[in-house]
């Protein structure tokens, strides 16, 4: 998913729908390992199985929407603002009564929000929506690694070392932040966090971990 943003809208739907299908099937299959029970006495597996099936269905619909959008986009007319009147969506029963079969078959006609011109507004999206860049895989990886390292080291190495490593790795993910700058940021934030959480809030966090004892 490193391509330019412009043709992204329908690919987004394909990807999101695909993820939903995979997650739905995974949950549904895993749920069959648990006792299903009956509608009268639902076992632990009953609801997850139904929900997994519903999610798979919704994922397929989203994939279909993405395909429909791609067909429209490639057919030339990029009239995104056009009157998309026929927005057929899954009926209320798809959500109110969880039924695996309902709604999956009907390919949805269109989706007024997903065309390229209107990027989806999320809760935190600023306005106007800035041009979206590439997926910052390296930065995202550094951030995830920073968080993971905290979990891995906080008990063994202690909170001071864990804080430093985490803030250092996270700092490296910043634009134009080199190792020296990241280290400076890390030292400052480590001191701040120790003051706030250990001294201020008296959390039971060992300053030095079990590895050093």
């Amino acid at each position: 998913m490193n391509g330019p943003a412009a043709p992204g809208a329908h690919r987004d739907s394909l990807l999101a729908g695909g993820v939903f299908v995979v997650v739905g099937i995974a949950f549904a299959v895993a749920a069959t390992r648990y006792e299903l029970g009956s509608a009268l006495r639902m076992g632990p597996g009953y609801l997850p199985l139904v929900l997994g099936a519903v999610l798979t269905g919704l994922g397929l619909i989203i994939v279909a929407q993405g395909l429909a959008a791609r067909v429209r986009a490639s057919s030339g007319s990029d009239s995104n603002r056009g009157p998309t009147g026929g927005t057929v969506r899954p009926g209320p029963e798809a959500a109110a009564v969880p039924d695996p079969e309902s709604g999956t078959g009907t390919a949805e006609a269109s989706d007024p929000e997903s065309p390229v011109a209107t990027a989806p507004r999320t809760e935190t999206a600023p306005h106007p929506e800035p041009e979206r860049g590439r997926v910052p895989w390296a930065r995202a990886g550094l951030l995830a690694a920073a968080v993971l390292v905290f979990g891995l080291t906080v008990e063994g190495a202690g909170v001071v070392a864990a804080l430093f490593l985490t803030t250092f790795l996270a700092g490296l993910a910043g634009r134009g932040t080199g190792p020296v700058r990241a280290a400076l940021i890390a030292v400052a934030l480590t001191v701040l966090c120790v003051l706030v959480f250990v001294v201020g809030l008296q959390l039971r966090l060992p300053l030095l971990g079990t590895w050093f004892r």
Partner: protein
Amino acid sequence: MALGLQTALQWENVLVCLIGVTLGTAVGVLPGIGSTATVALLLPITFNFDAVASLIMLAGIYYGAQYGGSTTAILLNLPGESSAAVTALDGHQLARQGHAGLALATAALGSFFAGTVATVILALFAPPLAEAALAFGPAEYFSLVVLGLIASIALASGSTTKALAMIVVGLLLGTVGQDLYTGQPRFTFGVRELYGGLDFVTLAVAMFGLAEIIRNLEHRHSESLVTRHVKGLWLTRADLRRIVPPVLRGTTLGSLLGVLPGGGHVLASFTSYSLEKRVSRRPETFGRGAIEGVAAPESANNAAAQTSFIPLLTLGLPAHPVMALLVGAFIIQGITPGPNVIEDEPELFWGLIASMWVGNLLLVVLNLPLIGVWVRMLRVPYQVLFPAIVVFAAIGCYSLGLNAWDVYLIAGLGVIAYLLVRWGCEPAPLLLGFVLGPLLEENLRRALIISRGDPSVFVTRPISLVLLLLAAAALLVSVLPLVRRGREQIFVED
């Protein structure tokens, strides 16, 4: 109410309220951090206090964060969440024209007035509603949860199908952990730490903290502060005359819409903005610095923030992600939010309500003079800011249960959430689904056991039927292009 004021005015409660609003504003003012992220990040801090104090503090953090968010929206054009996006439209234009003080003072005074009115409404209507809710059985609760979930889609922007799918993902994540009735561990992959289920704070921090940071790292930050010094915080009489009608209209709309489950505060600010535009004699000034365009949505937003406590305190049903976080806080304090809170914990209930007013007052008194401090916080470079958020998220989640698994989950869920958001799926429905999932399953199963497996209980019991019909109507509304189009227009025209 007297009990409430007595509780809220105890000096230690005033102090925690003050700490709450100050911390909330300080974190909320940071660009790119919405009120949900603020509350999630600061949640661990409140656990050291007793129940009343910690909830007062959390509520204070919530409106502090909202207040800080509008400051950022006005000065930086960087709203932390979609309800503040409306404020940014005209607020930022005013700031560019050198009227930042006017916009900030209007937002503060409008919010204060709206908060006062909405707090009174909350105090008046919550007790009778809670009494009615005591008659609710499992069938009614199930239908109510369905309504809440569906309404959250109806009010969200973006694709309805994707929002539905996100809700289902949330519901599925909510099933992780031991089954309520049989004790069977589900989807835990043998990891003992997951038996208790995923932690809500972990999920919220991942989705609104880490995912948001990755989003922000997509593009270069080139925003610059328009004003270094904010002047003109005192409104003239002419200004006042201009803002009073929009504030009144915004307060009314916000109080009504805030009760709706699923993010009524967002709808409130959008609707009140378009209403002002419609009734204005100079609609062409909107988007170019119309003070009415700041006054109305800010009042509506704040009124809705207060009245959104009504479903939480009367039904135990969170109306949006911040309320869901508060549910978590209630439970950690050993209190189940719901209709029993008024009876069982009168001090907490009335104290919380009274503290809302105190908190709003503190916000105005403190923040107008302190605006210079917040402006300085806006200058913290993002390269320093986001490592701080990351490490706060990690240490905060770890300190909740001293459980390294919570921290690993932030990393994984954060990256997944970022990708989903990028692909046009909103995080809020997932979070609501996650919180309401166990409630949904429990009541569904219990209702079916009571009815001996007859699913018609949901439509034969009148209250349950009405709730389900409302849910169906909400879904229809979200499908009809009319409402969605109307919302888009606000942005298209400017």
